[in-house]
């Protein structure tokens, strides 16, 4: 028993500590890399939070929306606009973004009309199940629509986005990761302003709090839902673009990475925008450090389960997440 405890201590604490002491630059590189991946997780998680915060619906289909929106953009860019206009000055990509957002608007309208409206005032679990259905619909429909362009490169060059490494004090970063971090920061600020300072944001918060009460004070529920699903669609598009740029192309396999946003949400809290940013960073760094320093003792592939174990621990001790609203209900 004592040997086991010593083994645990050595494997999980002493040896990693010695390794970090001996090669601090490697440790810093891993932390930096983890932070960058964490930002990408946060971008996907933002979409979940938006819809949950504004409508009380946990949208399981958010990762598939990211793939759907990005593949739509590529389709418009590569198959429709570029062959027709042939401009190399970025106009096609701007038009493609508009085209993709129009598709997300149509999707939002259909979701509101066919899915959410018939389910008003139903328990949350029913709405959640409906979004699982939406996930599989988007997957099947997306494969039918975009199968030929899946695995196409994301036309980031048209946006002026550079790909490749850069160094800060000897630590290597990827330009695409740094761009994602900057984009995430801008999006968080914009969304925080929208929720706190605008009438639409206040209306969305009211809808999230109580559908019937919001309706009774004249807030148009259906309009609000469409608004939030469109905004979530925009977030999905940005997160899909960033992931695609990082992986070299967009494909349906990306959904597994995007689902990592679930433990990020549990960690950060379902209703907190800053929470998901910090949750993403914690998970990004945590899983990277675990993979690098614990894999000699636990085997490879720690990254694939670490985030879920961390989320489970947080669920046990703090079910509302690190930054989520604590629900106190009258019995």
């Amino acid at each position: 028993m004592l040997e086991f405890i010593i083994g645990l201590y050595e494997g999980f604490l002493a040896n990693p500590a010695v390794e970090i002491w001996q090669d601090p630059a490697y440790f810093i590189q891993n932390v930096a890399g983890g932070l960058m991946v964490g930002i990408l997780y946060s971008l996907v998680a933002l979409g979940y939070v938006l819809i949950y915060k504004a409508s009380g619906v946990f949208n399981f289909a958010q990762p598939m929306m990211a793939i759907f929106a990005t593949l739509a953009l590529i389709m418009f860019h590569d198959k429709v606009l570029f062959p027709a206009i042939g401009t190399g000055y970025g106009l096609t990509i701007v038009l493609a973004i508009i085209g993709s957002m129009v598709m997300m608007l149509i999707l939002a309208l259909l979701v509101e009309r066919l899915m959410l409206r018939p389910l008003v005032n139903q328990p949350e679990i029913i709405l959640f199940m409906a979004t699982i259905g939406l996930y599989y619909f988007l997957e099947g429909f997306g494969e039918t629509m975009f199968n030929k362009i899946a695995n196409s490169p994301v036309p980031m060059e048209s946006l002026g986005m550079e790909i490749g490494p850069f160094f800060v004090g000897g630590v290597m970063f990827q330009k695409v990761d740094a761009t994602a971090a900057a984009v995430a920061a801008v999006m968080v600020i914009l969304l925080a302003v929208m929720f706190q300072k605008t009438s639409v944001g206040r209306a969305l918060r009211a809808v999230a709090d109580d559908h019937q009460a919001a309706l009774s004070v004249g807030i148009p529920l259906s309009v609000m839902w469409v608004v939030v699903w469109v905004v979530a669609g925009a977030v999905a598009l940005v997160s899909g673009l960033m992931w695609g740029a990082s992986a070299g192309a967009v494909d349906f396999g990306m959904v597994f990475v995007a689902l990592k946003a679930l433990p990020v949400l549990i960690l950060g809290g379902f209703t907190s925008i800053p929470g998901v940013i910090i949750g993403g960073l914690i998970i990004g760094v945590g899983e990277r450090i675990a993979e690098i320093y614990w894999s000699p003792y636990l085997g490879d592939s720690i990254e694939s389960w670490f985030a879920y174990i961390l989320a489970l621990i947080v669920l046990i001790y703090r079910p509302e997440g690190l930054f989520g609203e604590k629900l106190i209900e009258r019995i």
Partner: protein
Amino acid sequence: MNIRKLGLRILAAAFVAVPVWEASVTAAQADSIFIPQASYRTGKYSVNGTPFANGFDDYLAMLNVRDGGIEGVTIDTEECEFGYVTDKGVECYERFKSKKPVAYTPLSTGVTYKLVPKAAVDKIPVLSSGYGMSAAADGRWFPWVFNFPTSYWSQASAFVRYIGELEGGLDKLKGKKIGLIFLESGYGREPIPLLKKLAEKYGYEFKDYSVPGKEMEKQQAQWRKIVKWKPDYMLMWGWGNMNRVAIRRATEFGFPLNKFIGVWWSGADSDTKPLGKLAKGYRAGNWHAPDACCDVHKDILKHVYDKGNGHDKAMVGQVLYNRGVVTAMYITEAVRDAIKANGGKAVNGEQVRDAMEKMSIDAARLKGIGFEGFTSPIKVSCADHEGSGPVVIQEWDGEKWVIIKRDVKPLTDVVRPMLEAAAVTEGEKLGYKKRDNCS
């Protein structure tokens, strides 16, 4: 007429019609052979599955149009979509087996392992060209499974020989570091025992790095570990989008791509085209042409696409399209041999299996069927089900794959004894007995 009478008449008509219909179907089947295909045009590996399925199907369609099938026997074919999910792949086989296929190509190492015991019972030869269970190369233990032109172990050993050549000889490998990044699966782990064995023999250091299927879009942690270890060469046993991301990460982390060699399932157009010039220099194994080089392509375009059929003209000549074509060719040539040997028209799985064990396709025969310059000659025997075909090395030049080295032979002196030992282990697990008089 009341409802009861009408119902009775319909039933009576059905009694008469069904046997007549069955008889006509059976008669039709006597003049045709059934070559089904398990495919995956959907799912996360569809980028690889689609061109392969197109090539396989287009080749069979071309034979039907150009030659009226094989030796006058029409080819019936059918696809079963399994999404590269092992259980669904086995279901596809179960669905097809009642239609008496003359051969079956599972297109998945996981499915192949599951079919090994079934094939012998159902008397359907399984051809896992360039994938599947390496031990099946020993036909004395596995009469119903074939993996020609080369098993994974032979291919891995050819890579080691190639690296040795680059370094100035196999003796120069001592002290070098060779790593493997692989998809966490039975397929991905397949070359590890062989690479370890060769490390003992030639004195290189070996380390492996697994990539779980759910993490294949990331791989940053694996490449951090790899660059810290500073290998001289990296091999890859990847599939689907793992390949593209691995090449991408290798460039990001500054690993030289001309020292990064992928298995022949990690060297498709979809792995490198999205990266373009970024992937320049990356290498991979292969056993056939990487482009629309040959007469067979012209025939496919003429007899299939020009008549408004075919799947996707843009894919004709792509690496995995060609693999579908060459796999279909192996089956149809075995069927041709079986038909000739049996003097009749349609043949069954048992006869095709016998033909596969005697298969010999030399350069003249390749030329005759439009495959000159497409692939190497092959010779299979009762004991040698892999044919020990040579491996070619291809390189991505920034726009297309080009072959930079031909005829890299496997290290048979090491591989064959390992294959035979593994065949004993795997065969005994299934309760098989070694065949006598089989060489």
